[in-house]
């Protein structure tokens, strides 16, 4: 498998096939005298901004902290992933992860309050 081609930026679905987001980053672990190991995938706005530029990543993280939002990206261990042709299947429940935090907040505080939602 080629990590960037086959995994990075792919759609991530949870175990119920619900869309969670995309593979925004991949975390490799370097250990003494061993080959690098893929440990996690990351999802989150700070990871994306870091890909644009480190300065953009730091600025967004600073702003998020100021607004009381955790800038830490959500990580899914590599062992819980199944890399498919079109999607990456994660053995998690999306609603119970920070990946859908904003979706649930919008649902509860904004969209859910509009008649006919």
């Amino acid at each position, binding site marked *: 498998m080629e990590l960037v081609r086959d995994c*990075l*930026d*792919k*759609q*991530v679905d949870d175990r119920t096939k*619900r*869309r*969670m*987001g*995309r593979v*925004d980053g991949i975390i490799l672990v370097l250990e003494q005298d061993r080959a690098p190991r893929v440990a996690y995938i990351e999802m989150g706005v700070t990871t*994306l901004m870091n*890909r*644009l530029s480190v300065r953009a990543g730091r600025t967004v993280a600073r702003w998020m902290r100021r607004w009381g939002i955790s800038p830490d990206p959500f990580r899914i261990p590599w062992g819980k992933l199944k890399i498919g*042709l*079109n999607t990456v299947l994660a053995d998690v429940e999306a609603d119970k992860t920070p990946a859908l935090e*904003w*979706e*649930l907040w*919008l*649902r509860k505080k*904004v*969209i*859910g309050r*509009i008649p*006919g*939602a």
Partner: protein
Amino acid sequence: MKKLLEIALGIVTSVGGFLEIGSIATAAQAGAEFSLELIWVIVLGGICIIFLVEQAGRFAAVSGRTLPDAIRERFGFNYFAFMYAVLGLVSLLVLSAEIGGVCVSLELATGIGFHWWSIPVAFVIWLVIWKGTFGVIEKGVSVLGLVTLCFVVGAYLVHPPWSQVLHGAVPSLPHHNSARYWFIAVSILGATISPYLFFFYSAGAIEDEWKETHVGINRVIATAGMSFGSLISIAVLILAAMLLLPRGIKVEHYSELPALLVPVFGAKGFWLLVASLGISCLGAAMEITLQMAYLTAQGFGWNWSENQRPLDEARFSFAYTATIILGMLPVIFGLDPLTMTVFSMAATAATLPVSIVPFLFLMNDYSYVRIYSNGWLSNAVVISIIGLAFVLAVVTIPLQIFGGG
């Protein structure tokens, strides 16, 4: 029989949804200032959009993916972010112009200033998207959009010199005011080769659950739908050349547009123009709004579908709500809709390479389109469109300065 019905409905949808504020305004200006000379630009734009829409549909039908989805995956986040910023800004400009178009039609009908209509119009657009399904928006509004065929009937009734019409379909150099000629040509191309058309079409193919079996249907719909659509734009140009040019009307304000149909249909012509302008702009505004929400949701991997309840995809619903609010702001502040239209069409032309270059790679990537990859003709056309898009990107700003006024 079912396939025939699907094709017919697809063609009707494409024709009814083709005309919008940009194509009406630029075609009318072209006819009013340069008679039939610029017909060839609509033909050229029509050929380009046929190929791009066909490829967008084929890609979605075969790969099961939309364009933004594949662009993010194949080109990475940085390119996607760049495309999103450029396309987002241009789409908002075009959306403002379309909302302005609906407001102008209401101003023509009621006499109440167009900017007073911006909030009610934005609310109606939002409400239809909020309550409606993809089918209602795509087919319902497009069927109503068939009222724009009145331009074709009108163009036939004014008895244009058909030999000159055919002559106008052949590329020619301007006889006077070159900068203005080329500026209008660029604006027509910007109005015809609208990225929102093929992005929306690819999302629609997924919403309608197209499969490989739809490749043939897609080809017929794209070719016939876009060809007939271009024909309506040509009809607007013919009407402007026959009715506005002799009276020295240069379409500097939308209030001059009824002069396209009133001499042909009498008082009914006024209401046909109001209905055509209002419905076509309303349909386009809905498509652009949804396209922005699709682009956002597909690029970031959110849940999306116009057929689900807003509550089940809160981020998608929020994306189209925010798009409408941003799109109506320039109209509320009273920016002239015609100026916005001309500027947004030129901006669309200038940014075309960003959305068209990925086609060449995606349509030749076996992992996405397998045996349905582009043949030599499609590749040659896409390369030519990319070349044309780069030329447009370079010349648009100088032409805007020297020929925009």
